[in-house]
């Protein structure tokens, strides 16, 4: 949808990436986050880490139709404390436990009414009870049908591109330098080629190419495209966001409220990792580090990947909540990355390119009602869409103050 349409327009790098991405057929399943009450929706966030509604099995089973599978009283008890039931030898509970690879569901401190609310929310497929269609405020980041190897290939490409590009640039620069020197030597000393214009053309071309390369390199100073640092914990977004299909905003939960998307506090990891104690690849080694952080009361020092210059003000809530931009549009397909890499170059041109083309939620958000002239233009067909630029999104003091 947006990710394919817009991102492709601004950079070649994206194009390459996305052509490949098309094979993976990105399916954007929309979870509607609205419900009877905000509380139910909030409580369902607890479940969302391991379950979907009609989105297939994650860590735990798909919850679609869960209301019909078991009697309500049983379900409530199970959600509140499944381990107790399993230990008590409840037949159904033990069966479920075994079906799901013996991964225990953490007990939840919810009242009966709260669980009923969640069940109703599930029953409505995450829709409001009255059936009023609401604009989805989160666009989940699911991928289906992609095999593990395909996904990995996509992420690998990014890392390889970085090295390749650099090598290409350096060799072009050296070749040009050598060509230029040869023609200068020939022009002044050896004089093998009589036609002087050949020398001049070669020198001019070499200077132009080298100038271009220097310019590109110089502007990239201070930028960190394809930056891929080693993290203190070998945390894989591919496993969490990709395979387990945990919503980005489950962990980066302040992305919809604050300028910072936020790195999740360790306590949030523990929501799942109280039960999930070992990973497929790294075993217990990496997950142990979470427990160590809690035990030693020492937070984990993650290395920040997407860095903006200090004189830039960037607000995640503005883009994610208001602009309804997918995380992937700027951060790339993080759900395919084992180790996160910075995909965009995060330069001003890169920001502005998007601001020039990206449509704002002009009709949907009442804030924009005050722009009477733009509304008139839309109505009269002078404008087809209102882009960020139309409401001043390319002005200095939208980002620099």
């Amino acid at each position, binding site marked *: 949808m947006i990710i394919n349409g817009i991102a492709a327009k601004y950079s070649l790098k994206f194009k390459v990436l996305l052509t490949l991405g098309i094979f993976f057929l990105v399916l954007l399943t929309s979870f509607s986050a609205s419900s009877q009450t905000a509380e139910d929706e909030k409580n369902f966030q607890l479940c969302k880490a391991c379950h979907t509604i009609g989105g297939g099995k994650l860590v735990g089973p798909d919850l679609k139709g869960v209301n019909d599978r078991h009697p309500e009283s049983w379900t409530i008890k199970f959600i509140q404390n499944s381990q107790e039931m399993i230990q008590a030898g409840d037949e159904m509970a033990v069966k479920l436990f075994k079906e799901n690879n013996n991964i225990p569901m953490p007990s939840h401190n919810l009242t009966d009414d709260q669980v009923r609310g969640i069940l109703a929310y599930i029953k409505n497929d995450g829709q409001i009870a009255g059936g009023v269609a609401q604009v989805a405020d989160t666009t989940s980041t699911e991928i289906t049908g992609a095999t593990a190897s395909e996904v990995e290939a996509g992420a690998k490409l990014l890392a390889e591109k970085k090295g390749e590009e650099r090598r290409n640039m350096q060799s072009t620069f050296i070749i040009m330098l050598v060509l230029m020197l040869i023609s200068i030597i020939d022009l002044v000393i050896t004089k093998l080629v009589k036609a002087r214009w050949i020398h001049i053309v070669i020198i001019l071309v070499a200077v132009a190419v080298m100038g271009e390369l220097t310019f590109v390199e110089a502007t990239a100073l201070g930028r960190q495209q394809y930056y891929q640092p080693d993290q203190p914990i070998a945390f894989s977004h591919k496993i969490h966001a990709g395979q387990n299909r945990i919503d980005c905003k489950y962990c980066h939960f302040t992305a919809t409220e604050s300028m910072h998307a936020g790195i999740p*506090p360790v*306590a949030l990891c523990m929501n799942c990792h109280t039960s999930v104690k070992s990973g497929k690849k790294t075993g217990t080694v990496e997950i142990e580090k979470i427990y160590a952080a809690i035990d030693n009361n020492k937070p984990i020092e993650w*290395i*920040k990947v997407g860095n903006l210059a200090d004189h830039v003000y960037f607000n995640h809530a503005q883009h994610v909540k208001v602009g309804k931009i997918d995380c992937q549009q700027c951060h790339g397909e993080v759900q395919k990355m084992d180790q996160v890499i910075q995909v965009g170059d995060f330069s001003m041109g890169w920001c502005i390119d998007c601001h020039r083309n990206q449509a704002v939620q002009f009709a949907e958000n009442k804030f924009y*009602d005050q722009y009477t002239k733009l509304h008139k233009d839309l109505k009269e067909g002078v404008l087809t869409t209102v882009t960020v630029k139309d409401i001043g999104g390319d002005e*200095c003091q*939208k980002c620099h103050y």
Partner: protein
Amino acid sequence: MEKIYWQSLEKHTEQQASVLENKKPLPEFSIEGLDESEIKGKSTRRDFLKMLGFSVSAVALVSSCQMPVRKAIPLLNQPEELIPGIANYFASTFFDGTDYCSILVKTRENRPIKIEGNEMSPITKGGTSARVQASVLNLYDDARLKHPFLKGIETNWETIDKDVFTQLNALRDEGKRIVLLTSTIISPSTKTLIGEFTSLYPNVEWVMYDPVSMSAIRKANELHFAKAVIPNFRFDKAKIVVGFNADYLGNWLLPVAFTKQYSSNRKLNGGKKTMSRSYQFEGYLSLTGSNTDYRYGIKPSDEGLILMNLYNEIARVVGATTYSVPASPVDLGKVTLDLLENKGASLVVSGTNDVNIQMTVNAINHLLENYGTTIDLNTPINLKQGNDEAMAKLTKDMNSGEIAGLLAYNVNPAYDYFNANEFNQGLNKVGFKLSFSDTMDETAALCDLVCPNHNYLESWGDAEPIRGLLSIMQPTILPIFNTRQFEDSLLIWMGQNQDFSTYMEKNWQKEIQSNNIEVGNFTQFWNQTKQDGVFQYQLNEEPQPDFVEQKLTFDLPKQNAGLEVVLYEKISIGNGKYTNNPWLLEMPDPITTATWDNYLCVSIDYAKQNDLHLEDVVSINGLFEIPVLVQPGQPDGTASIAVGFGRTDAGKAGTGVGQNAYPLMNLQNGLPQLAGSVISIEKINGKTFPLALTQTHHDMEGRPIARETTLPEYLKNPYAGNEQHLFDEEHNVSLYSKVQYDGLHWGMSIDLNSCTGCSNCVIACQSENNVAVIGKEQVKNRRIMHWMRIDRYYSREESNPGVYHMPVMCQHCDNAPCENVCPVAATNHSSEGLNQMAYNRCIGTRYCINNCPYKVRRFNWFEYTNNNKFDYNMNSDLGKMVLNPDVIVRQRGVVEKCSLCVQRIQEKKLEAKMENRELRDGDIKTACQQSCPADAIQFGNLIDTESKVYKQVKEERMYHLLEQLHTLPSTSYLTRVRNTEA
């Protein structure tokens, strides 16, 4: 050519002449041993080495360029209310022993960065003062003590507690006197606690002390009404206000609340046709005096006589006892008439700490039937409870060796007591000396034990500034240093195992029960009160106490040739508690525009007679030397000096700044008074001391900058004083088409009729926008960084001028002269009417500064952060904690200026978008507007015809600054109206 800065026209001409005669321009570079002609085209061995060095280091620098690794460290467990990037606001209370204000503390990632006014407070109503705004910087003051001290050596609390416990008990057993010397305490819980403390240690006496005392008001009311209180004054109910040496808009009692009341009574917006009239009799040009309608400069010793005459005039008309007194030196006909016409709606106040004077004031107010209307004795103001006589007795007893212990809390008498020498001598004779001071101030330095108190932003507390109004103080940050709250220390020494917050909550519960105040569920009420910050309970209607007639008397004016000195508290640093606050030190005085110093203000006539000029140094009574400032409006026969300077142990910014004027206080009728001492002045020939004034220009050069009219004329013609606006509107034509805005057009309107010049906005802006402090020398070089300045102009005669205050910041012109000249388009216009400044694009040509007719752009001549030459708050990790993370700290070589708080605009726009609603008028408040105690500033959308700013812009009094230039500013002003006759 060397740049020349000048202070006055005379000096400027002098300097120019000397430069022309003696100096030829120096060559830009010089290579030793060569003439200028030989240098051209030649490079020496040294040049070669320089070039080599530069290129090698440049190459090394570039090749070693590496991006720093930045870390993102999340909390282990993130509290629900803490979202990185989102500010939290906590209601709290500012009380420093003198000033009270209900505030909101803005915290980001759990550290306080800004103080806002609390709009829920029924008295301060969202206003603050410059000192309140700057108090957040004190939290991050490096001069704060980081540990308790025992005999000058760092120690821990266990040792201190053991020591104090032993000494307290030993002294109690021996029955020896201990004095707990505190500032005024308005906290009901602390008072109860001290009561319990003194009953546990019955040998402890409690004395309250104020450096600038008002005990005379309490004494006079005790004699007249049998109630030793300071009554509540209602400036909003008074149609005529007469002040005698009472700077009620600047420093007197509750200036923030009084400014709110006073200005609300003088607004003419929306067709209002009446305003109050104020008279001021004073010994120096105070902030109140600069705003008043009729001002009379008087000698301090004349005050009693003038008041007596005023009393007589009124008494004669209403038929009360009159006294035979000499004639008044000023004509009182007009003020008498006004007062009599507005019986019951007038107010006479005096700031002099003299019982005779206060009794005369009481008698006048009684004759005018003001009690019960503009003065309320039943809801007294609890500030200024200091008892001068008890303090004098303490000093005497200490010297006679009768005091065995002294516990000093929130007081610094070793510096600010008028008789500090004697106090210090006495203190040396005390065996057990303890100070709770949070810095090693003059008194703490003399004490054996120092138990540093928390900053108020780290403390729990409550306050009852006015009877019936309770106010909560709550911590907004964990203690930064190893300090402990005064009350917690007392609780520990009382052997109690609870902290003060629990104690306070219990005390509230108890008090609310015993006073039968209906609050419903207490826990709910308690949480609500902590959220609101204030709680007002209904008092039973009581009649005003009866007035008991007393014989009035007064002191005869001093008949001598000496100058009478008037001491005053500066609007910026007050009584000396904030002398180490660089923001306040650099805040220009609203009257003299001086920063960083105190000085002797003398009248123009006196200066002429004695050949004194600005910056000449004089010696006062042989005590100290101080520079002179010739002050228009300084009454003849008087001179004035600000107290609060000359600290010896303030901290790195404030120590040694200015001279201590407290020893010049006037002890009269047993009470220390600020004014009235006779001083002798001796000019020290040839010696000068530089003063950093931000404005030496006093008039408007004939340009209609600050516009003014009188009330009668305004009523006749709403455009009075503003005729120029109509003319300019008509004659300003432009080839450019007018900018059309869609949706949003930000604008600001400043009502000069409300603005008092209190400079709260200057500091609020500095705090919000990370404005750098640059030090005295750079201020003198005209490089002050304040985005908002308050221009001050004088009019009329020099001896008693009319004064204007005019806040000036970037006017955000639609035809901005600065935008056209920027070669890199670093400053340009936004679609919302903002004149934007992109610092990262600016290359520092300063063309914009030169082309700005308002001179509101500031240039960063130096790197003001991480620079030891500017060792203020932006040079240490601690000081930098106060910076607003939403605003960039500007670097050297870029221009900066007012952005109309664009970060606040963007924040509130986003909030509206996230809530899927339209922006409401009043959602966005700029920093200067939010805490303005006079509500002089309005900000909003000029397209929204319902917005307050739009309505204000449509007033007839509206004009733009220098509008003949046709810059089309988005900022506008409203003409000032004085309530004088014609």
